[in-house]
């Protein structure tokens, strides 16, 4: 249960950063924190008490003593997607910095928000 609360707090902290920070890089960091929070939450959903990793490397391991493998597989995908988003976001930040010579969001805003 503590795992849920920890992961949810991470999500909220990340969202707080995105909503209030003025620095573009900090906003991107906030997005990554949200991603990590979601991934941790998903992994804890798959947790089973006293169970082990879902790999049949020894004959003594049985299926009923393993954690749910599906969330792990999905989180692997989600991590990669989060990384891709972050990469594109950083590329855009580089572009914006080039045009405006600043990372402060108040000074960049030209379009209406």
């Amino acid at each position, binding site marked *: 249960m503590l795992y849920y609360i920890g992961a949810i707090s991470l*999500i909220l902290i990340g969202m707080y950063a*995105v909503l209030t920070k003025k620095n*573009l890089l900090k*906003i991107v960091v906030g*997005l990554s924190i*949200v*991603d990590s929070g*979601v991934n941790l*939450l*998903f992994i804890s*959903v798959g947790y089973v008490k006293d169970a082990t990793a879902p790999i049949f490397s020894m004959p003594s391991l049985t299926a009923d003593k393993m954690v749910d493998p*599906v*969330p792990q597989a*999905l989180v692997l*995908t*989600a991590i990669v*997607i989060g990384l*891709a*988003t972050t990469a*594109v*976001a950083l590329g*855009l*930040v580089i*572009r*914006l910095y080039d*045009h*405006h010579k600043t990372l402060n969001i108040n000074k*960049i*805003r*030209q*379009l*209406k*928000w």
Partner: protein
Amino acid sequence: MEFSPVLYIAIPLFAAFLIPLLGKVSKTLVKLTPGIVFLYLSYGSILLFPKAMEKPIVQVVAGFKPPFGISLYYGATAAFLITMVTIVGFVIWLYSYKFIIREPIEKYYMLFMMLITGSTGILLTGDMFNMFVFLEITSIAAYSLTAFLRDKDGAEAAFKYLLIGSFSSTFYLLSVMIIYSYTGTLNFADIAGKIDLIPPMAKGFVLVLVLVGMGIEAEMFPLNGWAPDAYSQAPSPVGAVFGGIVVKAGLYAMIRIVFLFFKTPEVMQFLIFMGILTLLIAEMAAMRQHQIKRMLAFSSIGQMGLVIIALGIGTMGSTSAALFQMFNHALIKSLLFFAAGYLVFHSGSKQIEDLEGLGYDKPVTSFFFAVGALAIIGLPPFSGFWSKLLILVSVAKAGDIAILLLILTGSVIEAIYYLRAVVKLYTRKEVPDNVRRTPISGLVAMGILAAIILYVGLYPGVIEKWLAPAANNLLNAADYIKAGLF
């Protein structure tokens, strides 16, 4: 090898992987590839479309039965929308052929192909997490294309879109997580059968998460702040891709999930309410725009509001009208973006004010813009007339006069600002001689769209007969579950 629905995803993807290698050989090859892909996909549509209208084709990927493997569900609705995507995609490619002259051209076509992959994936997939993956493919391609011109505002619009878009995907992923933790499955049909395992509180939360997550892609109020900037800063063909393809895919995803899992009267009421808000606020905002592409973007949001209202009413008639409207909007809005793209290019300014007199200087492009404007307002003999009429009839049948009046108000506002732009276009004014011409490929693309719009307007039967099975497929959750789990 028989044509299988999975090719709608695999072929554009294959092309995207192939383009950088082709680019080493010749640029012309790169430019031609997407056209070949779309022609092949249209050929597939001709083969599969009639079959899907009778019975949904469920295609298993990797040879495991659903719910254990991922399955693709090519039903009547998906078939209808995918055919639309192939037509619009082909025309957009034709238009891009001469329009995108800025390097890196191969990257443009790679991103374009992946955007198509993502959208067809959203339309086809029968798996909730797989939909998330395709949603992300679509979004990341869209962010990059928004910033393709590499100017100041493009980067800013793309960053804004990215911020909102990542919230959207986070919310959607959370909803997948909650659903999985209670039902232990990810297949849409399987979840729909087990949806009562989720306690009411969590179910409500999931509904909110899905509506927010997908509502961003479907431009539902108040989550559409990204749209006007992205539409107006991206290159014109990309604006057409957003309005014609991406938004349609997002809306389909939202409606499919809502109709499968949460189809209660309250939710439908809420959809109608959001639709009305979206329609009215967007139309009023469009009225106030001075830039032509921003005006088109807001009008696009308004049209989505109209579709959401019709879907929210949820009768057979209104759902088929909504699908018809989606089809029409995809074609007409693409035509408008194409024409606007060259008008902006010729006049050298994005402002509506500066369009004055172009109607005489550039008669063909302006004519196409006028056709699009009249069609989207819903005047006969264009196709927009029939879909709007059908929506109004179905609303009247449902007996809600207030909604009818609100839709009419929205339409009147829409008519005013479109006519204003057209009148501006045909106001006589000396225009400095302009040697730049609209290239043939652009004119052909616009001509094809205008011809389809006129043809469907004169003979609405060609589309209408496919609407009933498509709407039935969308409305009937029990059939979906039966077909999806075989």
